């Protein structure tokens, strides 16, 4: 099938496992990280990059350059991190990566699909690096700033409108988190996308039911998101976000005249059962003691099929 042909090097399941392993290793080494986001999103990002997105070859160095400054009239060296997704040619898809705090997972995905060198992750959250903790528009794989949650879908809608107007066959994909449904702008954006019949706009949402303060239902219920999204004019498909076949099928859903929203129901400790004991405080995993860190290292490594991470104490 066409999906397998895009990256014959590795299966998407292998890429997803690689993402979990890499984020796990990083989190143990640094005694903290966005671990649960890797658990929930690994299959989705692996599937997007390894199969679904039509992307050209990367245009930026495999090891990201240091931060070259913010956009200004005088900064001629400035560029976004979109080059890791390939050139913005008309036939290619564009990815708006809305949950900027998933950056560690996004970078790990780029590495696993061969778009960034593993050494690039060593610069994560280091001063002077472009591989920032919260993905900025100059960070690998990013094209716009989304650290303020809720702007992503609107930006994608505007880009989709513009691309349709120019007759570009490439689609716009927005990767989102379910917490963004608490932001009014998300609904404004969807309303506009539906009003303007933007069927070249696709949103994939990680529905892990988690947010910074804990379980979403304890923070602010969004209730029946599928019905609400449909009522706002989207074509909505709800799937198990860890089921690659279901993701593939969801993307084939016909949605003429409507944006497509795929709700990927996920677990924030998928593939790392040890994390379940931390539920529902999983937004950022930091180990409370060396003993806990060592225990997590042993348990999660075993589940991921790797040796425990060697780290400096």
């Amino acid at each position, binding site marked *: 099938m066409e999906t397998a042909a895009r990256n014959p090097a590795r299966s998407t399941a292998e890429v997803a496992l690689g993402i979990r392993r890499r984020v796990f290793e990083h989190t143990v080494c640094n005694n903290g990280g966005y671990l649960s986001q890797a658990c929930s999103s690994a299959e989705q990002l692996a599937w997007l990059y390894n199969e679904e997105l039509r992307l050209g070859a990367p245009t930026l160095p495999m090891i990201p350059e240091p931060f070259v400054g913010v956009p200004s009239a005088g900064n001629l060296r400035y560029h976004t991190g979109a080059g890791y997704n390939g050139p913005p040619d008309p036939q290619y898809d564009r990815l708006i990566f809305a949950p900027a705090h998933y950056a560690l997972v996004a970078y790990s995905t780029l590495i696993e699909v061969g778009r960034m060198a593993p050494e690039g992750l060593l610069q994560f959250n280091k001063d002077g690096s472009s591989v920032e903790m919260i993905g900025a*528009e100059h960070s690998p794989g990013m094209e716009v*700033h989304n650290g303020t949650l809720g702007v992503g879908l609107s930006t994608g809608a505007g880009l989709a409108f513009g691309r349709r107007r120019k007759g570009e066959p490439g689609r716009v994909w927005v990767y989102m988190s379910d917490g963004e449904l608490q932001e009014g702008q998300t609904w404004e954006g969807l309303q506009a996308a539906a009003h303007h019949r933007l069927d070249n706009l696709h949103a994939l949402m990680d529905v892990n039911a988690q947010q910074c303060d804990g379980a979403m239902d304890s923070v602010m219920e969004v209730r029946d998101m599928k019905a609400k999204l449909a009522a706002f004019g989207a074509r909505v498909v709800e799937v198990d976000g860890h089921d690659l076949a279901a993701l593939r099928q969801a993307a084939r859903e016909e949605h003429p005249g409507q944006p497509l929203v795929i709700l990927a129901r996920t677990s924030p400790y998928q593939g790392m059962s040890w994390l379940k004991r931390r539920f529902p405080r999983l937004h950022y995993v930091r180990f409370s003691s060396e003993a806990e860190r060592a225990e997590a290292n042993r348990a999660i490594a075993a589940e991921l099929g790797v040796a425990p991470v060697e780290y400096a104490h």
Partner: protein
Amino acid sequence: MVEMVTRPYARAFEQYAMTHPEVLCLSADLTSSCEVDGFRDRHPDRFVSLGMAEQNMMSFAGGLGLAGFRPFLHTFGVFLYRRPYDQLVASVAYPRRRVRLMGFLPGLTTPGGMTHQAIEDVSVMRSIPNMTILETGDATEVESICEAADSIDGPVYCRVLRGSVPRLFDTPIRVGRMRELSAGSDVLVVTAGITTEEALRARSALASAGVSIRHVHLNTLKPFDPAPLLDQLASVRHGVVTMENHVTEGGIGSLVAEVMADHGVGKRLVRLGLKDTYAHGGSRPYLMRHYRLDASALVAGIEGLVGHPFGITDADLEAVRIEAAHSLAKAEAL
């Protein structure tokens, strides 16, 4: 009699947009209020209705900019920065999208009260990196605002006048160039937008009173080249009076103060405008008088600077209104 021009923006935008295909007309349910209803009706394929949802409109415009378009956003100025401030910074200003923010009803030009009056927009926009700020003061500037704004490689916020607008100038906006309207030697008066017309109302009366006014009109508030202003400041004896349709913090009064302080200009500065206050709803003449940013307020400010009263009455100011505006063509040719 000064020429009054009806809906100059409507014609100017249509004319400009029709020769620049990357320009799109965006509106948030204030289409006729922003004089683009005719454009919408005649060119529906170039018009993007985004409803009452300014946060989305801002980021949507950022996405259009990413796709290579140059969206012109039409709404009241106040709705371009208060509600969608986060989106303004993240989706438009930071990435230097070529988005043109056409802010109608600046300051006290609306009877809509606090919610409709953009009284701190210049202050907000001046503090946003990458932003350019233009302000129109007459029909000719409104007619040239689209081309001026669209010449900027980055985001632009414009204070746009609408409805019946006097024609004070006969040359278009040249971005970055202030207009010297008179070249006196006693007091420098700095105005922008509708306060320029007010200053012109006082012009004959001040001349009759024997005070020599040097008057400059600003249409480019950011970026701001200090050199021409420093030359103007060096040419007057007493000091400078600024008058703005805006709070006196962060607008042109602050701008002039910063230039003077940065360059050690030891002259007095009187800043006229809204003094750390909101306004309420009412007619423009009432509001300008009530909040002291009309011709009589300017006279009082100049009196304070020079140190003695001139004996100018309201009747003197009313009487010279037409004459002052009419004589400007000569002044501008200086």
